């Protein structure tokens, strides 16, 4: 068990820079998730910590000790690779025994090895596969074996690279729930890399969102969810992704092309973006509720263009006078071509700075009530 510190971590491949000075402090026993799209530098970060990449700028510290110049096996890290990297010519048992037999991670008698392997494989439910070769395993079993090779040895830090990504959706959900139950996982400092926001939200004590080799935001799942630093973080979490409507702010009120109006924080004017999560919107029929509670709720009227079933929930594409808004609802009475009134709490409406289409921009704040005086003026 140990803390993990990255300071100014920089890595280059050929001419491209994979990491631009990463700074991060991970507490002892913390489960930290790095979330980002492919190519963001997630795997590179893990490999820098493991000491598998040469020519790294900055410093990695484990348990307060600088790892510069320290060989991979002396760092006290255990890593699960996305590709599993199981030795194809060795059985599951030999794969798991490999760290124990190297002689560098403590000396283990054959009996101790067998006991340790038994313990781990029982936990992971793969004790019946010990004599199999990796090619004879399903993806789920390979993934467990790779995880077993991490758990079987003593380590200060676990590095897990997309361990669930090759599993089908159902197995992934089950394994995700299982991971949190592993005692070893909850006690040992873990750096976990994924592109799946649900994994990040479910597993992480804290999450760091990585883009183009830079940390965009670090925080607890709730912090990232309620106050995303920019549209990139906002779009990274949640499916379908957050609606972003272009608007122009004049006198404290932002108005979209389709006529949606929200109050903006003081001092904001000019082009902005309004962000609303599809699941934060609720549905009412027009005229039913009116906008009596208009002070803390924003209401938008529109026509349902598409109603698509996601499962129990239905995803609606709503055309609000030209603004296209995606809504997820469990109300199954809404049909295509219906006119609906969407409503959302003002605190769940995010205001972002404007940017070119396809570019990300910073969050300014949450929507404010429209002050009557300003509207009249």
């Amino acid at each position: 068990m140990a803390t993990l510190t990255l300071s100014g971590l920089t890595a280059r491949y050929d001419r491209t820079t994979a990491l631009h000075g990463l700074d991060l402090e991970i507490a002892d026993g913390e489960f930290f998730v790095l979330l980002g799209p492919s190519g963001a530098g997630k795997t590179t970060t893990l490999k820098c910590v493991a000491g598998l990449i040469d020519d790294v700028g900055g410093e990695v510290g484990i348990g307060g000790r600088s790892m510069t110049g320290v060989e991979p096996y002396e760092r006290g890290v255990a890593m699960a690779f996305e590709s599993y990297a199981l030795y194809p010519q060795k059985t599951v048992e030999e794969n798991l025994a490999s760290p124990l037999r190297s002689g560098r991670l403590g000396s283990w008698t054959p009996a101790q090895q067998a006991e340790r392997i038994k313990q781990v494989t029982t936990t992971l439910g793969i004790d019946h596969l010990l004599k199999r070769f990796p090619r004879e395993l399903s993806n789920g079993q390979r993934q467990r074996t790779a995880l077993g090779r991490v758990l079987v040895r003593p380590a200060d830090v676990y590095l897990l690279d997309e361990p669930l990504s090759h599993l089908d959706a159902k197995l992934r959900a089950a394994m995700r729930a299982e991971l949190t139950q592993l005692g070893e996982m909850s006690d040992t400092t873990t750096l976990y890399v994924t592109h799946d926001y649900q994994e990040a939200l479910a597993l992480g004590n804290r999450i760091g969102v990585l883009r183009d080799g830079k940390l965009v935001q670090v925080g607890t799942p709730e912090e990232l969810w309620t106050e995303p630093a920019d549209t990139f973080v906002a779009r990274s979490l949640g499916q379908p992704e957050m609606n972003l409507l272009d608007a122009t702010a004049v006198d404290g009120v932002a108005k979209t092309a389709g006529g949606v109006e929200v109050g903006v924080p003081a001092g904001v004017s000019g082009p902005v973006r309004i962000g609303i999560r599809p699941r934060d919107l609720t549905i009412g029929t027009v005229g039913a509720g009116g906008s009596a509670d208009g002070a803390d709720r924003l209401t938008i009227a529109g026509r349902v263009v598409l109603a698509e079933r996601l499962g129990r929930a239905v995803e609606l594409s709503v055309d609000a006078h030209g603004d296209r808004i995606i809504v997820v609802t469990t109300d199954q009475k809404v049909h295509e071509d219906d006119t609906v009134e969407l409503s959302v709490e003002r605190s769940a409406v995010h205001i972002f700075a404007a940017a070119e289409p396809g570019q990300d921009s910073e969050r300014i704040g949450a929507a404010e009530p429209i002050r009557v005086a300003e509207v009249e003026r």
Partner: protein
Amino acid sequence: MARELRPGQRKYSPGSIAADAVLVGWFIFSLFPLVWMVLLSLKSRSEQISTYFAFTPTLENFGTVLSDEGTRLTSVNFTEALLTSVINCVGAVIVSLVIGIPAAYAAGRWKYRGSNDVMFTILSFRFAPELMVIVPLFIIYNQLGIFDTNVGMIWVLQLVTMPLIVWILRSYFQDMPAELEQAALLDGYSRKRAFLMVALPLVRPGIAASALLAFIFAWNNYVFPLILTGSRHTPVTVAVTRFLGGGGQAYYNLTAAAALIAALPPLLVALSIQRYLVRGLSFGAVKS
């Protein structure tokens, strides 16, 4: 097997039949020298220059080539020449593997400034005409005293075998995920042990394929031994041509028989490791 309509699949038409006929014709034409040689090796001395297909086949030529009679005719013992060739080629392949496997590994794993230039230089040994270097080599060999020795031949055959082995194995190492060795490093193994334990077993098909190819290329090499060996360590390629005589009598039937015997060892080796060869020659066979 799935039956799909493929772009090449069509019904027979006069055009397609004509095209097939041309291809069959070309096939026979290409195969003819080989057929002719087999026929020639079975002919007696008196029939050797006749172009009729009708003759009385005899295996006598093969015996003659391997006997003292053959040695008398050519002043080279053909059996010894076979042995010399085996020693030279096996030696050359072993030396190439010992040096070439680590070289290929380094070339496949590490990129550095000029790494591609180094690889191209190695490959260019294969492109360079042997005649270009043969005269300086002859002088050097004489001065070093390795003219007409096995050591000299093994050395010079590196020009043939090494580039081949390095190039083939490099693509194998490139195709092998580096993460396997990285996992071994984290498991507590040194780079050397990670290489021996993880990487080497996985490229075995590649080693077999490249070693065989290198062996065949070395076996068939003619120019180097022609100039750099004398009568003591003559390999088969040179020995075969001795039956054509140096200004005296030409024994075409014996030449053909000798050539067939000389072609046998590579063929046997190829057949014995055919399983590896098929997998090995399709690059990237490491990934499952």
